[in-house]
């Protein structure tokens, strides 16, 4: 059994919470006491309000909205699912970015009466920007348009035009009614003209995380294990998670940023030596040489070394109330490496409805901007569209410790400024 993480995106009234509630309810993932608590709550139509299964916090219950990312879990005989429920309002772009960062698939929900609207574009583009490869267009509330095939086809065509325009992966369009359960878990006989899978059938069959086993090998040291006991006086193990690709015993490796070279003497998983290991395994590496390595350093096969640079260009989603102004100094956290950094330049702001660029003097909360960053220490990085792990970072306020921004490395090449690269449209914004 494997694992699929997906995010649901939609506008306030598209019925997103109802859809999640329906998935949980119809897949028998809701227990009796939780249902009893729901049934005790006042409802509009007398039926159990499935949306309440996901609206957890009091402020949300009071206002009837979802204000923060919530996680829900369910398991079918074929898969374990992690649902990230991100709110739909414009002002919560940061939550959408947060939710999309960990998702393999996005369900983009539209109301059949409204079709593709600005929010649909926005959610789709953000999900694509964050590297999601699988899209489902869930055309909801089809009961309210008489299960009209033409309306569904028109919406699916409108959406295909959008994904084509931005060279995004093709979406699977599914007509459904979350409120009544049509095509959510079981196929509906009220939508006879539709012969494709139900939403859950699709979620069970879509390829799970394209594991980075074939990607470039990447590993960063999280913690150095040094028992210093009588039995193991000289043991030095570099503990970390393989971020992508495969590591083999005997690989000749380079330590970055120092540039020192050594050979992998052993790969340990739970204290057992193994010949090889792949992402996302948590391992301990031991090297043949006693080189100086500490937390945040990367250990990478010499044949696959990434860019080592102090200058980056990146697309960031600004997540702080306090705006970003050029010249700002802050911390950049690239997984276990935390370095001082500065933002000398804001290149432009990105319109997330259109991916058009606009000049910007600053970045406000929920803005997506392209910036240049300089770091005090060189970082071993990849472009986000090539590696979703090592291409990602966050920006942190040095004093408060608050997370200020999510960053996607767009150009890590040392010679970027003289030799422009041409990544796919969705990643060159």
């Amino acid at each position, binding site marked *: 059994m494997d694992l699929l993480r997906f995010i649901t995106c939609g506008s306030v009234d598209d019925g997103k919470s109802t859809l999640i509630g329906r998935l949980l309810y119809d897949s028998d993932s809701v227990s*009796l006491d939780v249902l009893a608590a729901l049934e005790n709550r006042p409802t509009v139509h007398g039926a159990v309000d499935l949306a309440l299964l996901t609206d957890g916090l009091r402020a949300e219950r009071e206002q009837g909205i979802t204000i923060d990312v919530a*996680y829900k879990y369910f398991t079918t005989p074929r898969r374990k699912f992690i649902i990230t429920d991100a709110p739909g309002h414009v002002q919560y772009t940061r939550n959408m970015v947060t939710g999309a960062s960990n998702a393999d698939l996005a369900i983009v929900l539209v109301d059949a009466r409204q079709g593709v609207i600005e929010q649909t574009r926005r959610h789709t583009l953000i999900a694509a920007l964050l590297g999601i490869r699988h899209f489902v267009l869930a055309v909801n509330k089809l009961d309210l348009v008489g299960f009209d095939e033409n309306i569904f086809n028109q919406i699916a065509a409108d959406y295909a035009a959008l994904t084509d325009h931005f060279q995004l992966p093709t979406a699977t369009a599914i007509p459904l009614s979350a409120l009544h359960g049509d095509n959510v878990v079981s196929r509906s006989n009220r939508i006879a003209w539709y012969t494709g899978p139900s939403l859950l059938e699709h979620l069970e069959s879509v390829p799970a995380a394209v594991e980075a086993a074939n990607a470039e090998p990447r590993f960063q040291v999280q913690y150095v294990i040094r028992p210093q006991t009588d039995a193991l006086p000289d043991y030095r193990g570099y503990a970390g998670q393989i971020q992508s690709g495969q590591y083999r015993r005997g690989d000749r490796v380079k330590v970055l940023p120092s540039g020192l070279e050594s050979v992998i003497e052993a790969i340990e998983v739970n204290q057992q030596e193994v010949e090889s290991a792949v992402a996302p395994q948590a391992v301990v590496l031991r090297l043949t040489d006693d080189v100086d390595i500490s937390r945040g350093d990367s250990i990478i096969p010499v044949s696959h070394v990434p860019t080592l640079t102090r200058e980056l260009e990146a697309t960031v989603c600004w997540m702080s109330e306090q705006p970003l102004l050029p010249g700002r100094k802050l911390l950049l956290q690239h997984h276990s490496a935390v370095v001082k950094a500065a933002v000398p330049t804001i290149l432009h702001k990105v319109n997330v409805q259109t991916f058009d660029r606009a000049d910007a003097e600053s970045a406000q909360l929920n803005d997506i901007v392209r910036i240049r960053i300089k770091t005090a220490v060189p970082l071993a990085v990849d472009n986000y569209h090539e590696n979703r792990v090592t291409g990602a970072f966050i920006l942190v306020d040095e004093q408060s410790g608050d997370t200020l921004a999510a960053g996607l490395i767009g150009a890590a090449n040392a010679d970027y400024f003289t030799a422009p690269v041409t990544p796919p449209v969705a990643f060159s914004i």
Partner: protein
Amino acid sequence: MSTPKFDYLDRLEAEAIHILREVAGQFERPALLFSGGKDSIVLTRLAEKAFRPGRFPFPLVHVDTGHNFPEVLAYRDQLAAELGEKLIVRSVVDTIKRQRLREPGGKFPSRNPLQTYTLLEVIEEFEFDACIGGARRDEEKARAKERIFSVRDEFGQWDPKRQRPELWNVYNGRIQKGENVRVFPISNWTELDVWRYIQRENIQLPDIYFGHERTCVVLPSGQLLGLSEHLQLDEEDEIVTRQVRYRTVGDSTCTAAVESDASTVEDIIQDLLLAKVSERGATRLDDNISEAGMEDRKRNGYF
């Protein structure tokens, strides 16, 4: 050379080990909050996988309410000894005396809310900057929005509106003096996942998790509460002896038993697959009070 196939438990395990190592790498004085319950027992197994052959970079900390099940305390001491790791125990009874707190009264006196005081005391005493806990997002609605690294102010308070966005698997543990972080490595596990992991890893648990005969009082809700000296019973209470087990291990005064003759982990997994009452609902007397019960306690510094 074959590439090993990863199932979802392997992924959950790798994620949890990664989180534990981030704690070790980012904090000066972390601690692992150990209750003797299955979730914290699973955490110790994950810590072995994360840090052996080295020692754990944190002690185990147990907040003892004085209402714990004796079987669980014995298990706790034995596990700490077997692991060879440091165990710190602080007592709610001492806190009650020191801070002149009011002992909970009533028929079923729960010291559960008072644990928070002792927890904050022990955090202050050892200047812990990160406390690892076994909470899971599937346990309760307010937990569903909890971050894996959850920043608390110096009063241990959780502010749902001030939570940091948590992106990818990048965990930001940077804090100001006086603040601390609660870390939940098994956030993404469900009760069933925990049991399947216990099965796969052949983890030994306290006996009370398995079916056994116990004398219980029948609560008005129909739930069964094991008899103990801390309960204030009266003549009208119905006392029965049943074959029961515990799904969670909290205080003996507020953790109900469920009828079951499941004697192995396999039996329990079968029970769970058939079970229609969620873990907290089946066994916790203190969450039914109000729908916002957990949210309020978290705001006040609860685990």
